[in-house]
């Protein structure tokens, strides 16, 4: 027993030595290290997209949408909040995607609406995942009474229907701005993420590297932030994308129910005005279907990215040409050996 402890201590000292040595290494090799790191990141990115059409489609779609949102003031042809056309003008060269009942230019509105909708979804996702990480990791790592209580709260939130809860809250608050919607979405959509993160934390909680970190006397906060969190990145990111998709849909849903701020330009409020003017019945499909298509494409693209990330964190789930190749080679080998 004593021998083991001594050996362990020696190892710790060795580790410390090596870290101090790393600090003394000349600047040049650090630069090289940085280059190597960049190279490996580049290779990883390439590997992520290689033979993975869903990832390519998803990322390019989302890039286009984000660029559209970022450069909305440059790309849009009209002021989205001004009356610039006659009501329900069909798509033409002047108004690429037609005009709304109130004479707004749909193309400019959908670009500007992307900003609001994406911001709401993004920040709701960030809020939700922050709570999910805090609750999930604490509960999974600390265990015991803390875990019991946090798990109970998570489960209660999990079984409550979130969207109706959100609708009722928004209804009581009256027509709420996008800020309030973001916060409401964030604080109601964390439980699923917390649950997944908790179970993953529990799975790695008893691995050797955590135990050795504990033996070295690292503080709990440091263990959580430095040892556990990096191992959860793919789950956290997956959960984040899922929440963003959900939040975007919920914002649109609240919008069409008339619970959002209809004076702001967002995809939700566009749907609301299209619904109010019953544009589908009057044949002005563009007013309704353009924001709907924008929502659909964004949701679909994010889902494709999410699926590809799942495959990176669990390579077993991969499909695609390389799997086909593997099966082909496998069959050929079997044939050569006379097994098939």
């Amino acid at each position, binding site marked *: 027993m004593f021998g083991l402890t001594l050996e362990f201590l020696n190892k710790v000292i060795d580790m410390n030595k090596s870290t101090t040595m790393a600090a003394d290494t000349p600047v040049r090799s650090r630069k090289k290290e940085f280059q190597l790191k960049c190279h490996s990141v580049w290779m990883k990115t390439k590997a992520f997209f290689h033979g993975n*059409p*869903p990832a390519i489609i998803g990322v390019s779609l989302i890039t286009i949408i984000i660029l559209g949102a970022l450069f909305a003031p440059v790309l849009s042809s009209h002021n989205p909040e001004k009356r610039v056309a006659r009501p329900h003008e069909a798509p033409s060269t002047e108004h690429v995607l037609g005009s709304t009942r109130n004479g707004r230019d749909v193309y400019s509105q959908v670009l500007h609406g992307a900003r609001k909708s994406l911001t709401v979804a993004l920040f709701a996702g960030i809020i939700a995942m922050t709570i999910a990480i805090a609750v999930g990791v604490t509960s999974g790592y600390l265990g015991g009474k803390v875990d019991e209580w946090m798990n*109970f709260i998570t*489960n*209660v939130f*999990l*079984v*409550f*229907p*979130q*969207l*109706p*809860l959100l*609708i*009722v*809250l928004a*209804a*009581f*608050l009256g027509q709420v701005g996008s800020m309030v919607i973001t916060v409401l979405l964030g604080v109601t959509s964390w439980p*699923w993420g917390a649950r997944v993160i908790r179970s993953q934390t529990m799975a790695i909680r008893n691995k050797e590297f955590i135990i050795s970190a504990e033996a070295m006397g690292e503080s709990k906060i440091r263990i959580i932030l430095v040892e556990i969190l990096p191992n959860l990145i793919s789950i956290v990111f997956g959960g984040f994308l899922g929440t963003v*998709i959900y939040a*975007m*849909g*919920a914002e*649109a*849903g609240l919008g*069409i*129910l*008339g*619970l959002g701020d209809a004076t702001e330009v967002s995809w939700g409020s566009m*749907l609301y005005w299209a619904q109010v003017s019953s544009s*589908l*019945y009057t044949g002005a*499909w563009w007013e*309704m*279907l353009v924001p*709907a*298509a924008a*929502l*659909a494409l964004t*949701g*679909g*693209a*994010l*889902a*494709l990215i*999410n*699926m590809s990330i*799942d495959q990176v964190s*669990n390579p*077993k*789930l991969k*499909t*695609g040409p390389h*799997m*086909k190749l*593997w*099966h082909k080679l496998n069959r050929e080998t079997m044939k050569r050996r006379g097994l098939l």
Partner: protein
Amino acid sequence: MSFLLRRLGFYFTAFLIAISFNFLLPRMMPGDPIDALFAAAQGKMDPAQMDAVREMYGFMDGSIFEQYIAYIQSVFTLDLGPSVLMFPIDVTTVVGMSLPWTMFLALGSLIVSLILGVTIGTYASYRREGFFGQFVPPLLAFISNFPYIVTALLLFYFFGLQLEILPLAYTYDPSIDPGFTMEFIGSVAKHAVLPMGSMILVGIATWVFNMRNAMINVLGEDYVTMAEAKGLSSFRVMYRYAGRNAILPVATAIAMAIGFSFAGSIMTEVVFNYQGLGNILLKGIMARDYPLIQAILLILVSAVLTANFVADLLYVWLDPRISK
């Protein structure tokens, strides 16, 4: 048995929390909800009348604790006061009329998408390197992640308005008398196709991916190789051998999906003007009918909790180890 009792206790506690939330909600908001309700009639109603209305909705004098006890009593005796929107009718009656339709939509679409999704997911994992396994899951992931409202709108437009093959509103043809006749059932089915179809489209990917991922883990097991080596048909290996074990982790996701399904039903009903809770909820919101809104939230919570308990029963049946 102790497992089910524990779950029952949990659901009861969750229900109590929901009631407390419902109780606190109007009391946390600025101003008096009853004042807001009758803002237009302010000054025309004398204070005695206002007090009577307040008491009808449980906002009586007394400490907050006494009010709370009274509120819980009113919930369990199903006495939530009259609806503002449809005045003399009780809130519980209004909700009771539309709840079956929402249950039908939410649970029906959940069951159909579960069965379809599990079947597709199993096949997709088994034919992972083929066209089906490579093409179908990404496509479903793409389509299924359209927001509920968008899928509903798209189906509404293309199948209802453009092709005019399916009805666009109501739960059944109003000219038909409700009853157990073929005509009535046919009409209900026809009216449910679009709303339910849009919910199935949204719900299906969850099951396809859960099942596929679970299956891929199981397919590596020795007993599956053994079954293949015995020369069993691939259908038998897929569904009777691998599928049986892969379905366990999938069943745990049902709890989450029930809530989502009800939420989706609310959204879909609004688009298709389906006479369920979602439709009433929208009307209630527009009329600022707070008692009705609260009753709907409460009934939705209890429906979801009950459905969750049924899912627990199902899980015990699937995996008897858990009840020990």
